[in-house]
């Protein structure tokens, strides 16, 4: 399921990453199966339950894994073989391993020097300050909390100002304030024209990255695009709608009798939740029913156009 990008996200129609019929197998296990998609500047959330193939896809995107079939191109180059392509990419891997005996500054400085930056020391300091870490800390990374280590990982990924940034579960271990800071940083990078791919399985965080998602399920592409648009394309999945009115029971019974809805649940004296496949017809019908019954309608609101509902539908299939 693919929908056109929403305005402002991504910002440019340019394709920065192209995944062409990529599959990856480990022995008999197929982690990613026949995946074709593109990434453009802006923030894209890579979603999927554990084992869906998110980390494998990120590793394929940056060249850490060789595809069993298909190919990955970043700005037209192969990240596995092209140093120039790799210089445009920053990665925050999921694994915790780092150069534990180095300080945060040394870690980021080495990354900057390996990226052949002219003013590596200044850029390393700035990258650390971007993630709110003190460059002059003398403690080694081994002595850091998980959240601090995570921030060092982000700093080393940003130090060379890459055009593509891939972050595998980057918010793990961060406190709420740091999470907010990181989310705002990723959104800022996206709005500056960088291609930011953030993998996560925590949906309420992902919603804050923006609305552009790539959903993986069992190694396959389940959906890509704006998740609200994806929801609207799920024609075979009844939309859940909450109606607040002054006689919920009567309205519910009349809606069921009219055939406009497939399911009715009165959840309070003034609230009824319904499921309908045809939202447009339902809205017209509801207005005339309320008019006929002389019922005051105070609210009609969709209750399943959030990311979690979309995600559950795509990954688990239609609700029964």
């Amino acid at each position, binding site marked *: 399921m693919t929908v056109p990008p929403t305005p402002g996200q991504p910002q440019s129609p340019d394709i920065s990453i192209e995944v062409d019929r990529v599959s990856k197998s480990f022995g008999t296990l197929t982690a990613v199966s026949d995946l074709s998609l593109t990434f453009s500047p802006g923030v894209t959330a890579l979603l999927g339950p554990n084992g869906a193939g998110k980390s494998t896809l990120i*590793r394929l995107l*940056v060249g*850490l*894994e*060789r595809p069993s079939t298909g190919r990955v191109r970043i700005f037209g180059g192969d990240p*596995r*073989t092209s*140093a*120039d392509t*790799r*210089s445009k*990419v*920053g*990665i925050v*891997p999921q*694994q*915790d*391993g*780092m*150069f*534990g*005996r*180095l300080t945060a*500054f*040394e*870690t980021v*400085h*080495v*990354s900057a*020097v*390996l*990226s*052949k930056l002219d003013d*590596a*020391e200044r850029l390393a300091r700035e990258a650390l300050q971007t993630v709110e870490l003190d460059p002059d800390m003398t403690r080694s990374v081994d002595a850091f909390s998980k959240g601090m280590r995570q921030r060092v990982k982000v700093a*080393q990924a940003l130090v060379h100002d890459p055009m593509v940034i891939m972050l595998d579960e980057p918010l793990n271990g961060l406190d709420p304030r740091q999470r907010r800071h990181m989310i705002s940083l990723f959104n800022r990078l996206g709005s500056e024209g960088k291609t930011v791919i953030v993998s996560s399985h925590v949906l309420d965080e992902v919603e804050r990255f923006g609305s552009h998602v790539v959903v993986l399920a069992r190694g396959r592409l389940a959906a890509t695009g704006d998740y609200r648009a994806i929801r609207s394309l799920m024609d075979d999945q009844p939309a859940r709608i909450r109606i607040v009115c002054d006689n919920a029971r009567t309205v519910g019974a009349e809606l069921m009798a009219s055939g406009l809805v497939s399911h009715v649940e009165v959840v309070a004296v003034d609230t009824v939740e319904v499921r309908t496949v045809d939202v447009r017809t339902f809205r017209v019908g509801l207005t005339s029913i309320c008019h006929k019954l002389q019922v005051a309608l105070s609210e009609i609101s969709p209750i399943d156009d959030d990311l979690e509902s979309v995600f559950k539908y795509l990954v688990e299939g239609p609700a029964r």
Partner: protein
Amino acid sequence: MTALGSAMRSTPALALLWLFTQNLLTRGKMVLAAALTFICIILGVAIRQSTTAEPDVTSVGFVYFFGLALMVPVLSLVISSSVLGDLVEDESLVYIWMRPVSRATIAVTAWIASLFLTLPATVIPLTLSVVIGSSNNFELMLATAGSVALAVIAYSGLFTLLGLLTKRALIVGLLYLFIWEFFVARVGGGAAKLSISTYPSAALVRWIPAETLERWRDVDPLSLEILEERSMEAAMIVPPAVALICVGLTALRLARSRIS
């Protein structure tokens, strides 16, 4: 600290060298190197104090049987296999691999970093043991330092590659050393040609004073017969060639394998 550290990391190759060396300088490896130095000094003193009439031959025998056959390969294994092996193990290799640095630079600097540590940790104590144990023969010292350096050059290349190939590099390396280098290759013939330790040992034999060599022949003619089959050219060329091939294979492996 920062200025010196920054200067030591001023180019990608220097930064890698600095990084690999920092990673290698663990307390365990330092203790092992210090313990081996201590053992060499003690044994040097023991040889000196012993009633043997041939301290030079005993010292050379010590370098051949303990130094070149055991200490150098085992210490090289411990140090070199962990240069890249530890980074694969803790999955931090990705931070190097993702940078626009050639795989050959990574492989060469990893090998040089292991040389930085293994050379002084083997050449100094073994030469010191000869200084203490022998009749202070300068040729003997040079022969010891030279042959040990040749062995370190080859083993460091081999075990740097091994550390990248397998997470059980220590076990695989020890099995290789004990089965192939210590037993099969010492039988002589074709197996000896395929043994690394034969070549530095052959260099040792050709570099020690003729007088010491003749006395050694009286004590251990079989070993000398195998070692003298190797030409001086082979003794000088094979260890660096082994290192070169292994460093090349390390670079190839870095380019082709999946990176943890």
